[in-house]
């Protein structure tokens, strides 16, 4: 049975699940902007609130962390770069390496901000059906001149549909290579070639299959628009996010 990435919609009936996608997008943008400029106290408050909501919603947070393990390595590199590149009174002074308190502070701050944004994305994607994300994007783009909002929404939908297919295919290809002892080959270029080329070929084949399936079901850009309905609850949530953002921006 297919295992999917945790970065995909998980059905539920929590408050986060029930909020209108447009309000969620506005909230994510608002908190991201505030988070990018927030300091430790503000980030602490935002993180606690987010963690509380995730726990209340029973989102698979640990699976999510596992999914972003490579991103965490990137964050570690960013942290190291920040620590080494920021001047200040040295805490540790080796020959060529100086670690200072402002460096550590700077590194923690940047990484925390980035993790916060990833967490926001995780919460949003896990609680919002792709069809409503698509509908919300279409709604936001409608007043923008020269942007074919339906086409953009359709392309977004196809990308979202295809991400789990790519993950599944990558998993199957990796397993097939392991079954034939690819781990004995130490040359990374060889391994990458043997992994990458068949994977790309299969992905293109699956894309072809998907196109045929879409055609068989009379696919057209001019389809029934998805339903979006804002309620009092959405406005209250947006106002709460607005207030939180103002408070955090002053901390």
């Amino acid at each position: 049975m297919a295992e999917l990435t945790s970065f995909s919609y998980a059905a539920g009936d929590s408050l986060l699940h029930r909020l209108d996608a447009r309000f969620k997008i506005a909230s994510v943008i608002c908190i991201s902007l505030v988070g990018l400029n927030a300091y430790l106290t503000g980030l602490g408050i935002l993180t606690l609130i987010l963690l509380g909501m995730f726990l209340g919603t029973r989102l698979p947070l640990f699976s999510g962390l596992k999914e972003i393990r490579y991103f965490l390595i990137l964050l570690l590199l960013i942290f190291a770069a920040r620590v080494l590149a920021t001047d200040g009174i040295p805490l540790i002074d080796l020959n060529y390496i100086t670690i200072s308190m402002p460096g550590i502070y700077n590194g923690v701050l940047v990484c925390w901000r980035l993790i916060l944004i990833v967490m926001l994305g995780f919460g949003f994607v896990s609680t919002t059906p792709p069809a409503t994300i698509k509908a919300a994007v279409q709604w936001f783009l409608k007043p923008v001149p020269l942007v074919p909002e339906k086409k953009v929404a359709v392309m977004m939908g196809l990308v979202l549909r295809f991400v789990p297919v790519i993950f599944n295919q990558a998993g199957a290809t990796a397993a097939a290579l392991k079954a034939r002892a690819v781990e004995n080959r130490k040359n990374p270029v060889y391994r990458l070639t043997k992994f990458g080329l068949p994977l790309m070929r299969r992905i293109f084949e699956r894309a072809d299959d998907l196109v045929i399936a879409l055609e068989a079901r009379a696919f057209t850009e001019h389809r029934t628009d998805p339903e979006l309905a804002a309620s009092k609850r959405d406005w209250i949530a947006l106002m709460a996010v607005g207030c939180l953002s103002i408070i955090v921006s002053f901390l």
Partner: protein
Amino acid sequence: MNIIEIENLSHRFNDGTIGLKDINLGIGEGSLVVIVGRNGSGKTTLLRHLNGLLLPSEGVVRLSGVPVEEDLLKARQFVGMMFQDADSQIVGETVYEDVAFGPENLCLERGEIKKRVEKALHVVGLQRLADQRPHLLSGGEKRRLAIAGILSMEPRVIVFDEPFSSLDYPGVKQVLQHILALNQSGHTIVVTTHDPEKIIAHADRLIIMQAGEIVRDGAPVDIVYDLEAFGVRKPCDCRLELEAESWLN
């Protein structure tokens, strides 16, 4: 009366390979037709002409008297198609969304879409999985979802391309039950397979294809003994010279 009429149909692929050669076929409304043949015999190519996924190089396919290429949208609504790989047919992120995909393409009202989706999910018994992600379903459930996706478009003909491949015994029985129920409710059913054992007991007509041509066409009881001459294994009952028995028994 024939709901599908195929006249002098030939199909040549871009690389020059001949997919179909001079096919003439009429399929009666409400019948259950099984098309068999070894891999590459042209079964899938033929099916894809029924709803305009492929267009003929020569000849014509008519649905209720109307040539397919005259109105492709109508052809795709008229002939629902279930693919060999159910995974490639699933386009929605949830079961409900996937079933709603076809009716949304037909620009139906939201209320009508909801009604059709609920009815289709009820028919295949997937109502309680409406919010489930399709990729987490079992093989049999995925086939049932594919059937629901087709049913929500209310087609008159449903074609199944190798519907039993890679299914376990309970999965085969579930899919077979749905095929028969759809046939009993008035749908015309066309099934392709290279292993007719699972469905031959219920077929009204058996067609054998080889190298893009129809080489035998008739009642199963009359031509089932010819199967092995065309690379298709005879069903066990036939080998033992017994009457064909349903897989549902």
